[in-house]
């Protein structure tokens, strides 16, 4: 390096023309400003990058949160739908259960009705299946014992002038108690006079007595009362009369005496059937 160059480089002995110096200084100033600006720009750039990173992270977080919210909303919707479905199913189940209960109750009623009808059919069938007075009497007793559950009872027929009731058939009553009864104001006499059955609906029919029978049923033939059946006591396990018993009493009242009278007439006719001429003038 020359001496001149050295002194120029150190700046101590600046021998360059003043305008060049000025230009150099301006350049240096501009350069320095540019460098400063660049530095600032880099700083800003770095800051912006950091900020962008932060924003991206926040964005990701927000997106994740948003999708979680949507999933949550979907889940809540689904729960609502399922709750609604559950309520509907429960309500339908309750309806079905109510229908089923109604159906069971109805089926039970039908079965009970069927059983009652079977009882009545069997009783009626039995009453008319014999044409001997003894056979009919035995069947009346069967109905009373087996279907009604009577333990002590007596069937009375009224005498010709209607003043006395004569025992015809009985069960569970000592011989000395089987006496002809006067048609008076007793329970039996009243039923004979009015033709209306007496049935103790409140008390325990197994605890009836000879004086206070549990049931007295009038026996009719052609709408005329011709006797009564008095039930003095039922079997111990029979603690009350049921609907079927009332039906059986009605059936006995209307059929027992008629069957007995028919059998007696048939016996009197020496079991000879009437000739065809007996049926020709029926005008039906």
């Amino acid at each position, binding site marked *: 390096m020359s001496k001149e160059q050295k002194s120029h480089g150190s700046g101590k002995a600046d021998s360059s023309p003043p305008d060049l110096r000025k230009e150099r200084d301006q350049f240096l100033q501009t350069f320095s400003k540019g460098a400063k600006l660049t530095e600032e720009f880099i700083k800003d750039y770095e800051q912006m990058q950091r900020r962008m990173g932060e924003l991206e992270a926040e964005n990701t977080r927000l997106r994740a949160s948003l999708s979680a919210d949507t999933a949550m909303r979907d889940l809540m919707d689904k729960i609502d739908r399922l709750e609604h479905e559950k309520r509907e199913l429960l309500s339908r189940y309750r309806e079905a259960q109510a229908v089923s209960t109604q159906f069971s109750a109805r089926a039970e009623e039908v*079965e009970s009705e069927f059983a009652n009808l*079977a009882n009545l059919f069997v009783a009626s069938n039995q009453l008319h299946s014999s044409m001997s007075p003894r056979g009919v009497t035995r069947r009346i007793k069967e109905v009373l*014992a087996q279907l009604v559950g009577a333990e002590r009872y007596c069937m009375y027929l009224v005498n010709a002038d209607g003043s006395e009731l004569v025992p015809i058939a009985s069960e569970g009553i000592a011989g000395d108690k089987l006496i002809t009864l006067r048609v008076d104001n007793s329970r039996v006499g009243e039923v004979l006079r009015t033709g209306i059955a007496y049935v103790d609906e409140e008390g325990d029919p197994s605890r009836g007595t000879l004086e206070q029978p549990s049931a007295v049923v009038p026996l009719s033939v052609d709408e005329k009362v011709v006797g009564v059946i008095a039930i003095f006591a039922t079997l111990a396990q029979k603690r009350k009369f049921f609907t079927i018993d009332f039906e059986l009493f009605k059936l006995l009242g209307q059929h027992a005496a008629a069957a007995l009278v028919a059998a007696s007439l048939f016996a009197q006719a020496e079991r000879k059937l009437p000739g065809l001429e007996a049926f020709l003038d029926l005008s039906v």
Partner: protein
Amino acid sequence: MAEYSCLIVEDSPMMRQLLVFALARVKNLRVTEADDGVDGLRKLASARYDIIVTDINMPIMDGLKLVKRVRSDPVHKDTPIVIITTEGSQEDRQRALQLGANAYITKPIQAPQVIATVKELLKID
């Protein structure tokens, strides 16, 4: 579908008829009637029955003797027996159950009770 057979042993024709009516409500149940214990044993010797329904008070051979005989019969020793009787006391019930009866129903019978008992013993729905 399984078919079941039932033997009714009862001396009263009316009760037999009533029991036949009642048991006709049990699906696939074939019913045979016998009018006393001896007739019942005769029928048990000639066929196999899934259930026996018997009265107690019968002429010739009563229901309790029939239960005893059935329990010693190798073919029917495990066959369910339903007693139907007018005897309602606890002692009568105990005696019948001790002899080997499976159920005890007192008269007057309620058909639904007889049906339910037979179904239960035959394990029918």
